[in-house]
């Protein structure tokens, strides 16, 4: 059953496939050294793994930072001598210094949003899956693809180095709003750490653009014979719209960052006006800090869709495979991805309802923002219908996909609160927002990523992850995420502002001591369990159960027609031809019909 695909590879397709081949035919003619195979590799699969492993390292750092500041928030009266041992003057007497606390939250946000959930998520799966699922030997430009990773690596090195400078890394929030981020006098993190942050982000944007252009080019031009756009798996659609969003919005952030560098270093006044800071009267007049917010959120909002669309795509695919049932409403799924992609560019100012922006302008953004709930609702209902009357296999990947939908519902519904400017006035910049975005894009995107890792791990490494650890990982993370973030809605309703180190001076916000302690304890447990996942990941690369069948999940898509450990070029011999959409599960009494199988004239049409 697993090899029947090869029967259907058509001789007639050879001519076409030459075009796709990039000079490879699946065999290695050139000798590869360790360096060209594992380090400066141009193989999309290796680059995908590089993104993933770098992302995992960043995720551990970013999550560890959250554990550190949760210690402070959960146990404000205790001191942790170990912190002083580790961080010296940043944690004198075992308590976090305020500068350090703000550096931690800034880096937590920056690392997880950009380095993990953008590069680590779409970088990994776009690289791994696009050529494999569209039927190409590699990306349109493998060299550019390699550069994309190495620019990400340079960005990582710069960001990492900023953690070690004397005045500390950037500490103005992941949004880096000027004037705070522009004025060296305003905080320690606005000194050299901020310059390094901006330069690192510039490198990151270059990486993202090189990758994105490649993904788009590959999806549009390098599909195998018969792979029309409407036969693409939804993973590819998700990654395709992600790449478009990135290519169109990251340059705007780049311009915003460069103007900020100018304001900081060569005395321009793009964002600065009428400033008196720490006894200095600044000469700058006429700039507007709001300009930065517009430039930032023109990326910043699409960014959350850059994070969530790949997860949506993978979840759709994994749900369909494990329900043994077609994804419900394929065209509606593609259409809603498209709608989200367009609307993503038209809603950025909903982050700025209380910035003093014209209320009429705000009202336009309310309308456009709430419109996004429509495609999101369609997607949720379609996922529900996909599992309805299925025959569901609960692999760890499937469980994470179900968890994704649950998180996406919980976090998405509060988006309807925040997108409505009237409510936003009250809950803006409170814990309500933290609860909202952690559920809807933080935890959800992580669940999508975990689902992807568990599902495609056999393709990446030819081995399985340990299932028992996978189940523990899922259940603890699911329950933990709700325990951490659900009660934060109440803190937000009580007006508790985010980014507060200590609530003791306040009489309105100091009522949540027990809750904060509980959240911190759960955070530590969830962190520990996720470290266990990381261990499982690396351990299984070498010691995991070996994959013995070509198509372990009984899936229709093309990546499972490659050898268990595909070489550079992916297919031995010709690239298979595609005859149908990827979701023929449970059709005509058959468990699954791979894309490579020609349509039988007697088949029912849908």
């Amino acid at each position, binding site marked *: 059953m697993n090899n029947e695909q090869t029967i259907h590879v058509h001789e007639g397709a050879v001519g076409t496939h030459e075009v796709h081949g990039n000079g490879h035919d699946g065999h290695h003619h050139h000798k590869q050294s360790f360096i060209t195979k594992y380090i400066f590799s141009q193989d999309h699969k290796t680059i995908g793994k590089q993104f993933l492993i770098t992302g995992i390292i960043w995720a551990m750092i970013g999550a560890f930072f959250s554990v550190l500041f949760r210690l402070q928030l959960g146990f404000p009266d205790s001191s942790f001598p170990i912190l002083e041992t580790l961080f010296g003057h940043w944690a004198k007497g075992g308590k976090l210094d305020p500068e350090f606390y703000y550096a931690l939250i800034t880096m937590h946000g920056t690392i997880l949003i950009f380095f993990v959930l953008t590069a680590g998520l779409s970088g990994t799966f776009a690289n791994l899956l696009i050529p494999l699922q569209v039927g190409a030997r590699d990306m349109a430009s493998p060299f550019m693809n390699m550069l994309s990773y190495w620019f990400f690596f340079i960005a990582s090195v710069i960001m990492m180095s900023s953690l070690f400078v004397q005045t500390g890394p950037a500490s103005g929030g992941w949004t880096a709003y000027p*004037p705070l981020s522009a004025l060296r006098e305003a905080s320690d993190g606005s000194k050299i750490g901020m310059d390094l942050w901006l330069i690192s982000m510039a490198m990151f944007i270059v990486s993202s653009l090189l990758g994105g252009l490649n993904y788009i080019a590959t999806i549009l031009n390098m599909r195998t014979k018969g792979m029309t756009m409407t036969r693409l798996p939804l993973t590819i659609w998700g990654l395709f719209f992600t790449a478009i969003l990135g290519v169109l919005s990251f340059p705007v952030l780049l311009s915003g960052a460069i103007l900020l560098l100018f304001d900081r270093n060569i005395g321009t006044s793009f964002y600065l006006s009428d*400033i008196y800071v720490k006894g200095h009267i600044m000469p700058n007049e006429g700039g507007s800090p709001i300009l930065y917010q517009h430039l930032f959120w023109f990326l910043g909002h699409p960014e959350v869709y850059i994070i969530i669309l790949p997860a949506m795509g993978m979840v759709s695919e994994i749900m369909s495979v494990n329900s043994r049932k077609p994804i419900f409403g394929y065209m509606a799924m593609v259409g809603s991805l498209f709608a989200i992609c367009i609307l993503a560019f038209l809603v950025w100012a909903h982050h700025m309802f209380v910035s003093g922006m014209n209320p009429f302008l705000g009202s336009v953004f309310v309308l456009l923002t709430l419109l996004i709930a429509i495609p999101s609702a*369609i997607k949720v209902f379609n996922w529900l219908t996909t599992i309805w009357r*299925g025959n569901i296999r609960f692999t760890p990947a499937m469980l994470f996909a179900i968890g994704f939908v649950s998180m996406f519902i919980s976090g998405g519904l509060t988006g309807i609160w925040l997108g*409505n400017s009237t409510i936003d006035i009250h809950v803006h910049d409170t814990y309500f927002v933290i609860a909202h975005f952690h559920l809807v894009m933080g935890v959800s995107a992580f669940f999508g990523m975990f689902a992807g890792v568990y599902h495609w791990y056999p393709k990446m490494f030819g081995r399985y992850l340990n*299932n028992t650890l996978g189940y523990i990982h899922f259940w603890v993370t699911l329950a933990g995420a709700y325990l951490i973030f659900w009660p934060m809605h*109440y803190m937000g309703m009580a007006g508790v*502002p985010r980014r507060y180190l200590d609530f003791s001076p306040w009489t309105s916000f100091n009522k949540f001591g027990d809750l904060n302690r509980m959240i911190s304890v759960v955070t530590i447990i969830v962190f520990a369990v996720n470290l266990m996942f990381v261990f499982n990941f690396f351990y299984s690369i070498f010691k995991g159960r070996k994959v013995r069948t070509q198509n372990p999940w009984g899936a229709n898509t093309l990546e499972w027609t490659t050898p268990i450990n595909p070489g550079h070029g992916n297919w031995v011999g010709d690239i298979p031809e595609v005859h149908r959409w990827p979701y023929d599960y*449970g059709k005509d009494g058959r468990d699954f019909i791979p894309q490579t199988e020609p349509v039988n004239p007697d088949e029912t049409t849908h």
Partner: protein
Amino acid sequence: MSTTWIIVALLLGFIIVFQIAKASEYVAILKGEEKTRKDSNRINAFLLLVFLIAGLFGVWYCNEKLKGKILPPETSDHGEKIDTMIWITLAITFVVFVITQILLFWFSYKYQEKEGQKAYYFPHNNKLEVIWTVIPAITLTVLVGFGLFYWFQITGEAPKDAQVIEVTGSQFKWEFRYPGKDGKLGKKYYKEINEDKSNPLGQIWSDPDNHDDVVVTQEVHIVVNKPVKFIIGSKDVIHDFGLAHFRMKMDAVPGTPTTMWFTPKYTTREMKAKYGDDFNYEISCDQMCGPGHYGMRGVIVVESQAEFKAWLAQKQPQYAIANGAQSAPANQSSSPMDSTKANNAKPTAFLNK
């Protein structure tokens, strides 16, 4: 010490879990992988159902525990509108939340893999898809409608008789300026700021409107049932003038003044009587502004017209403080409240219309 123990406990736990996980793989091979897979399928399906029930219970329990800790309701006219909007939205989103989560976990449980069960080939259904496009669209239109109806009232022009107070945020404190009896705030320019010469806001002393303006820090007094309009600015970085109890919030942006207005409904004393002595109308900075952000606290005291008048009467205009008492206009310090008094003669004007 306890940190070390926690780390040791975590490590031990980890080793045990890992050994169990490793062993389970061997057991699976002994028992037959297909059988193990089916067993774990059943267990996970059951756990999904358990999670649904435990989760819904958790939602209820969390509400029981925490509902008393969210803010007292309705302390300003705008706050009432925002609360109404929250209730409307909560009603809709909560229903959707419960239904979709139940369906998600129930379907997962019910349609778990079973011997002889066939998945139903159901790729699309236009009627269903139209239904769940149109219903959300209608619902959201309603929400947008209500939202904007309130939004324009809240962000609309303040009533003419509103008391005007200027707020200035800076790292990490709040300063307030009241127009004196002329009812006008004098001109200011940031380059005039000179804290040594008692000119913290950069008032231009050559402007006579400035001569009766009173500057106070950290604590601002306003009058109950009288609209108040804040003109909000910042000296250094972006702050946010956040009034959680009144459900109001507005950024303080250097170089770009913003405004906010509302009508407080209860005095601080009334609220203290009702909610305990540690009740305060606190002003929080809600936009991250540097290392002291979390301590950028101010207080609003809501009081009666008479109390307010008495309070303001003891304040000296900043002009007098900066330029010595002798240069202050004679009528200045005696009765800076005349203009406000005139305004307050119209007590019916407290509503926003």
